[in-house]
């Protein structure tokens, strides 16, 4: 079994010659005057675990439903394995979907639910029961096969729904909030299981989720959506470390944002003057014109306590600890700095809580390095 790192090293989207398995070409969906999906283009490759991430109403579910054929685009085309399926109805697409509510047929047993899709394919009785057995085995629910959906727990239902959507051996599986209805504990263990399953079967997964943690742990790539548009498509690491816009930066994890403007450039670094005090020096990924309004974005865990605070030091701030949130493994400190802005910093609790150095109302100095944040232009 490939490790996460190995899997991530296979990055077909980096290869210009790679042919995408699923191609979404300038798809728009209008409901009345409202654009649910607005001119979205995406290329998703064989074997990917691709997540559409966004808050509710951002159009991610509509996009997924269009891939399933449950909704038709107002304009644009969808290609699966090179074939234009834009006008192909749901029942003829080589795609299966796992619904958010699971949509198990209440009047059928687990076995019959899993068998339903196979019956539509007119497989022989023997083949059907073989395949059903295989699926139940795969998801470890063989002993539930005579039960009805209302006799199952949430986690069991999720497995049945997964078994049913995998029974037809689709090459592309769509998952609408696959873990949304599970409690936190179950969700975490299921995340890994889902990834393992996907690797083992080599199926391309496209999931929809509003849970950024879920998207981060499971995906090869994430598309962050807002108001029907795609804001950024990249690997979880890149989305987290190098967001390209404010919206993505704020949506994933927490982040400190300092508005300012470029006052100088030095090599690949820019000097930004912000409202909170002294200039900040940050690495920039593309050249910037002097005077451009920008936002310096630094994650709380990239902040550290500063031992040699200098009045003219860059990327250094002084403030007073206002709030402490103790989370066990880490603590979040909210520090009121210069002009009254709050800066968040997380520190790992190396020492037991009672022996920690920082306490409320304490004066602290913090700093970060030029490479541990990004400069956003929008």
């Amino acid at each position, binding site marked *: 079994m490939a490790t996460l790192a190995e899997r991530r090293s296979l990055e077909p989207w980096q290869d210009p010659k790679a042919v995408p398995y699923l191609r979404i070409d300038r798809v728009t969906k209008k409901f009345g005057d409202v654009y649910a999906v607005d001119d979205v283009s995406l290329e998703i490759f064989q074997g990917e675990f691709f997540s559409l991430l966004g808050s509710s109403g951002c159009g991610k579910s509509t996009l997924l439903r269009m891939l399933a054929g449950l909704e038709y685009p107002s304009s644009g085309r969808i290609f699966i394995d090179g074939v234009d399926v834009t006008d192909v109805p*749901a*029942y003829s697409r080589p795609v299966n979907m796992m619904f958010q509510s699971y*949509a198990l*047929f209440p009047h059928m047993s687990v076995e019959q639910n899993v068998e339903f899709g196979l019956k539509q394919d007119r497989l022989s009785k023997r083949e059907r029961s073989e395949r059903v057995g295989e699926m139940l085995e795969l998801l470890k629910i063989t002993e539930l096969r005579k039960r009805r959906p209302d*006799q199952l727990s949430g986690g069991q239902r999720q497995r049945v729904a997964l078994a049913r*959507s995998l029974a037809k051996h689709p090459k592309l599986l769509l998952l609408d909030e696959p873990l949304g209805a599970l409690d936190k504990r179950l969700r975490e263990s299921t995340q890994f299981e889902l990834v393992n399953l996907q690797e083992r079967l080599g199926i391309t997964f496209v999931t929809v989720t509003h849970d950024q943690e879920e998207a981060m742990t499971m995906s090869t790539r994430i598309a962050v959506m807002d108001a029907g548009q795609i804001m950024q498509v990249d690997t979880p690491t890149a989305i987290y470390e190098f967001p390209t816009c404010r919206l993505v930066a704020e949506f994933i994890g927490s982040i400190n944002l300092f508005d300012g403007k470029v006052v100088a450039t030095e090599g690949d670094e820019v000097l930004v003057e912000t409202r909170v005090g002294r200039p900040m020096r940050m690495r920039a990924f593309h050249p910037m014109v002097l005077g451009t309004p920008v936002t310096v974005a630094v994650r709380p865990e990239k902040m550290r306590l500063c031992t040699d605070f200098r009045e003219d030091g860059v990327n250094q701030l002084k403030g007073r600890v206002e709030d402490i949130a103790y989370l066990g493994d880490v603590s979040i400190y909210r520090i009121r700095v210069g002009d009254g802005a709050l800066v968040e910093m997380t520190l790992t609790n190396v020492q037991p809580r009672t022996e920690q150095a920082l306490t409320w109302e304490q004066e602290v100095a913090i700093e970060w390095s030029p490479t541990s944040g990004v400069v956003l232009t929008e």
Partner: protein
Amino acid sequence: MRRRRWPLLTVLAFGYAFLYVPILLLIIYSFNESRLVTVWTGFSTKWYVELFRNEQLLDAAWLSVRIAAVNATLAVVLGTLAANALVRHRNFRGRTGFELLLTAPLVMPDVIIGLSLLLLFVAMQETIGWPDGRGFTTITIAHVTFSMAYVAVVVRARLSQMDRSLEEAAMDLGARPLRVYLTITLPLIAPALLSGWLLAFTLSLDDLVIASFVAGPGSTTLPMVIYSSVRMGVSPQINALATIIVAVVTLAVVIAGISMRRGREAR
């Protein structure tokens, strides 16, 4: 704290008495010897014997049951189609008008429905020669027009409660729309179809006013016979017939109850 239970029990007893004593009386008096319905003289089953000799009454009962069954079946088919259209197609042309027309029979007085249908049937007979005379066909048509509205209400409630994603899931798994309807939708709304059928059956069996308008000579339904004979003094035969009907209905309800419980336990 112990609560006193007798006030509640008294209320319950009164409630049941109010509902069931009349029916009980009717059953008791069906076994009365006397010709007078209100005077008890002794036990006898002679009215049952006479009932089974009274061909007029039996014919009327048989006609009513036939009309009720055909009516219920047609009403379920049409009512379900109408409910489907209303629930599944949110914006078709003339939807509001359709909805209004469908619910009109629920609020329209029977007298008006009966009279208007009579006028229609007469006009149709004169212009296209159909229906030829009035009887089974016209009564059934008349009953279907109003009972399908009731069926539509029942089925519509059930359909709109149903999770749409069940049908979408079936479609996603490769089932074509007709197949989805037969294997997923119909089984799930079956209870509503059954209660709609029973409702339509009862409404038809019950109807006196509309049937009186659109019935012809030689097609007298049971309520019409009972009503006209009551005017000439109630014969205990009617009691006997009513007792049989009550017995059949009770049996049907009990069977339905048992089979529903079985169905639930099987899950």
